[in-house]
C-alpha cells in the first residue's frame, strides 16, 4: 500500500467510525457532549500514562474512556443540582478537566510524545510511520486501532439497533418497556469516548467534533429514516475525509483541519441543495406557494363574477389591481402563470376560467 493510500484509508475509517456514534448524538441533541468528551479524554490518557508509564498501552484507551464517562457524570451531577443550566454545566466541567490535563502535560510529561499541539491538531500525515505487526501484516498502528473501533461501533450499533432507536426517539417508552435508557446512554457515551480516543491520535480533539457532528447533521437533511441516516452519515464522512486529504495535499497543510473544513463544505452544500429540506428547495417551495395562492385568489375572483353583468368590467386583466390590490405587473405575471397552468384563458383583455380553473376555485373555497 502506498503512503497516500494508507493515510486516506485511515482518514476514511476514522471518519466513518466517528459518524456512527455521532448520528445518535445529533439525534439526542447532545452534540456538545462530543466536544466535552473529546477534550477530557486527554486527562484520562495523561493519568493513565502516569500509572502505566507507556503511551502505547491499550489500557490508556480504557482510562480515557473512563474519563469520558466521568465527564458525562460530572456534567449531569452539576446540572442535577439545578444550580446551573445544562449548557453551562458542560461549559464548566470540560474546560476544567482539560486544563488539568494541559498543565500536567506541560509540567510533567513535556518530554514524551504527548504535546498539546498534537492533541489539538493531530498529525495524520505521520500515521503511516508508526507501524505494527497485526495478524502477520505490517500495518499502520492507527489503521489497526481505528479499524477495530469502527468494527466495534458497527457491531454494537447492529446488536443494539432497536434499543438505541427506541431510547433515542422515545426515552419514556424505552424505560417503560424495560430497556434501561440510562444504561444505553452511558454505553453510548462510552462508545463516543473510545472513538474519540482512537480518533484523537489521527485528527486531534476538536476535529473529532467535526467528524462526529457535521456528517450526521448533513445526513439528517437528506432523510428521515435512522438506518438511511447512518449509512448516509458514513458516506458523507468518507467523502469529506478523502476530499480533505487532497485539499490538504494541495495546500500542504494540516490534514485533520482540512478534513474538518471539508465536512463543513459538504454540510453547507447539502444544506443548500438537499432535495426536500435544503434551503434552495425551501425558497422554491415558498415561491410556488406564493404563485399558487395568487392563482387561487384569481380563480375565486373570476368565479365570483362569472356570468354576472359586472363580469365585463371585473374580469379584465387591467382591472385586477383594483379588486385584488395587486400591482399591475404582478397581476400580469399571475395571469401568465395561471394561463401556463391551463386555469384561465385570455380573450381580448378579458379573462375566462377553464373547467380546471373552476374546479380549482371551488376547491380553494371549500378548504
Amino acid at each position, binding site marked *: 500500500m502506498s503512503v497516500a493510500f494508507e493515510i486516506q484509508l485511515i482518514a476514511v475509517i476514522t471518519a466513518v467510525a466517528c459518524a456512527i456514534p455521532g448520528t445518535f448524538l*445529533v439525534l439526542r*441533541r*447532545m*452534540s*456538545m457532549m*462530543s*466536544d466535552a468528551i473529546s*477534550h477530557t479524554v486527554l486527562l484520562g490518557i495523561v493519568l493513565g500514562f502516569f500509572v502505566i508509564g507507556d503511551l502505547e498501552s491499550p489500557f490508556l484507551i480504557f482510562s480515557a474512556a473512563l474519563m469520558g464517562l466521568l465527564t458525562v457524570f460530572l456534567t449531569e451531577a*452539576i446540572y442535577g*443540582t439545578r*444550580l*446551573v*443550566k445544562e*449548557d*453551562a454545566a*458542560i*461549559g*464548566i466541567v470540560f*474546560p*476544567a478537566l*482539560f*486544563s*488539568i490535563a*494541559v*498543565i500536567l502535560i*506541560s*509540567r510533567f510529561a513535556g518530554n514524551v510524545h504527548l504535546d*498539546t*499541539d498534537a492533541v*489539538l*491538531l493531530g498529525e495524520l500525515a505521520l500515521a503511516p510511520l508508526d507501524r505494527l505487526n497485526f495478524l502477520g501484516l505490517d500495518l499502520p498502528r492507527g489503521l489497526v486501532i481505528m479499524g477495530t473501533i469502527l468494527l466495534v461501533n458497527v457491531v454494537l450499533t447492529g446488536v443494539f439497533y432497536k434499543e438505541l432507536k427506541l431510547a433515542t426517539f422515545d426515552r419514556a417508552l424505552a424505560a417503560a418497556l424495560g430497556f434501561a435508557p440510562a444504561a444505553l446512554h452511558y454505553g453510548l457515551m462510552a462508545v463516543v469516548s473510545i472513538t474519540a480516543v482512537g480518533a484523537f491520535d489521527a485528527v486531534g480533539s*476538536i*476535529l*473529532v*467534533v*467535526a467528524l462526529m*457532528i*457535521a456528517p*450526521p*447533521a448533513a445526513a*439528517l*437533511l437528506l432523510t428521515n429514516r435512522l438506518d438511511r441516516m447512518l449509512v448516509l452519515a458514513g458516506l458523507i464522512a468518507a467523502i469529506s475525509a478523502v476530499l480533505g486529504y487532497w485539499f*490538504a495535499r494541495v*495546500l*500542504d*497543510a*494540516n490534514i*485533520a*483541519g*482540512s*478534513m*474538518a*473544513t471539508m*465536512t*463543513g463544505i459538504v*454540510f453547507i452544500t447539502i*444544506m443548500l441543495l438537499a432535495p426536500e*429540506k435544503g*434551503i434552495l428547495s*425551501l425558497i422554491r417551495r415558498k415561491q410556488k406557494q406564493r404563485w399558487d395562492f395568487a392563482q387561487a385568489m384569481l380563480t375565486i375572483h373570476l368565479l365570483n363574477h362569472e356570468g354576472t353583468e359586472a363580469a365585463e368590467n371585473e374580469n379584465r386583466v387591467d382591472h385586477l389591481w383594483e379588486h385584488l390590490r395587486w400591482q399591475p405587473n404582478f397581476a400580469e405575471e399571475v395571469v401568465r402563470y395561471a394561463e401556463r397552468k391551463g386555469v384561465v384563458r385570455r380573450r381580448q383583455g378579458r379573462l375566462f376560467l377553464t373547467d380546471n380553473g373552476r374546479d380549482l376555485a371551488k376547491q380553494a373555497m371549500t378548504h
Partner: protein
Amino acid sequence: MDFLQLLFTDYTVRTVALGAAVLGMASGSLGTFAMLRRQSLLGDAMSHAALPGVILAFMLTGSKSPLVLVIGAAIAGVIGTLFMLAITRYTKIKEDSALGIVLSVFFGFGLVLLTFLQRNPDARQAGLNTFLFGQAATMLVRDIVTMVVLGGIALVILILYWKEFKLLSFDRDFGASLGYPMTYLDILLTSLLVIAIVIGLQAVGVVLMSAMIVAPAAAARQWTNRLGLMTGMSAVFGAIAGVSGSLISSLQSGFSTGPVVVLVISGIVIFSLLFAGNRGIIWSWIRQQRRRRILRLETVLSNMFKLAEQHEDLTHPHSRLVLRAMDHGRGGVEASLKALEEQGWVKRIEGDQWSLTPAGIEEARQFARQS
C-alpha cells in the same frame, strides 16, 4: 508573596495584570448575560470560530498589530454566529449540532491556515500559536492597550444600555411592546460578547476562552438573585481568575495562561456551588438534615402521645422498642428520645422505659392540633 511584591514593583507584571483584570471584568460581566440567555456554549463556538479570522487577518495585512487581529477575530466570530443562526433557522438541525459544526469546522479551517502559514518560512508568523492556549507573558504593551481600550468600551456600553439589556434578557416581548428595537439590542449585546471573547484570545487562548464566559457567571449566580450584583460579582470573579492566572503563568515557566486561569475560575465555581448563601449544596444539605431531625423528633413525640392517650395517666411510661415498632423499625429513635429529653419533654423512667413530661404533653397537644 513574591507575586504580590512583583505586582507592585514590576512594570511588566503590573501591565499584564491590568490587562487580565479588564479582560476578566469584560468576559465576566457579559458572560452573565450570555448565561441568562442560555448562550453559554455560544462563547465556545465564537472563540473557536475566531481562529481563522485571526490568521486570515494576519495573512491579508501582514500585520500582527493587535487591533488588526482582534478585528479579524471579531469578524470571523460574527460570521460563525450568523452561520449558526442560519442553520437553526432554515433547517431542522438543532442548536447543539449547529454549535458543534461551527466550532469544529471554523477551528479546522483555522488550523489549515495556520499550518499553511507555518510551512511558508516567515519569521513574523511565530506567535500566532499562542492563540491556541494563550500566553499572557508574550503580550506586549500595545496588546494590553488594545485589550483595555476595547474591554473598557464594551463595559461602558454595557452600563449605558443596562436597562435595555436587562429587558432583553428577561422579557424580550415586553421590551418589544414598549417600542425598544429588540433585534438591534440583541445584535449589540452579542457584538459586545464577541469583543469580550476576542480580546481574551491572546491571553487565554481559543480553546479555553469559553470558560471565562461561562464560569464567572455560573459562580456569581449562586450568590445572588439580583442582576446588578450578579454582574458585578461575575466581573470580580473574572478579574481574580484573569489576574492570578496571568501572574502564575508569567512567573512560572511551562504554564500556559489559559489552563491556569480556567483552574482558578473553576475553583471559584466549585466553592460557590458548595458554599454560596442560599443555594449552596452544603447549606441545603444541612437544612435538609435539620428538617429531617425535626421531623423525626415530632414523629416520636406524637407516637408517645398516642400511646399515652390509651391510659388514664398521660405520663404512663412506654418502652423504646414499642416506639421503634411504631416508627416502622427505622433507627434513630434512641437519639430522638435523648434530644427530646434535653428539651425537657420526655424523661427516662428506668432502662428503656420513657414517659412524657407535662411540658412534653403540652407540646404534643399543640403539634396534634397543628397537624
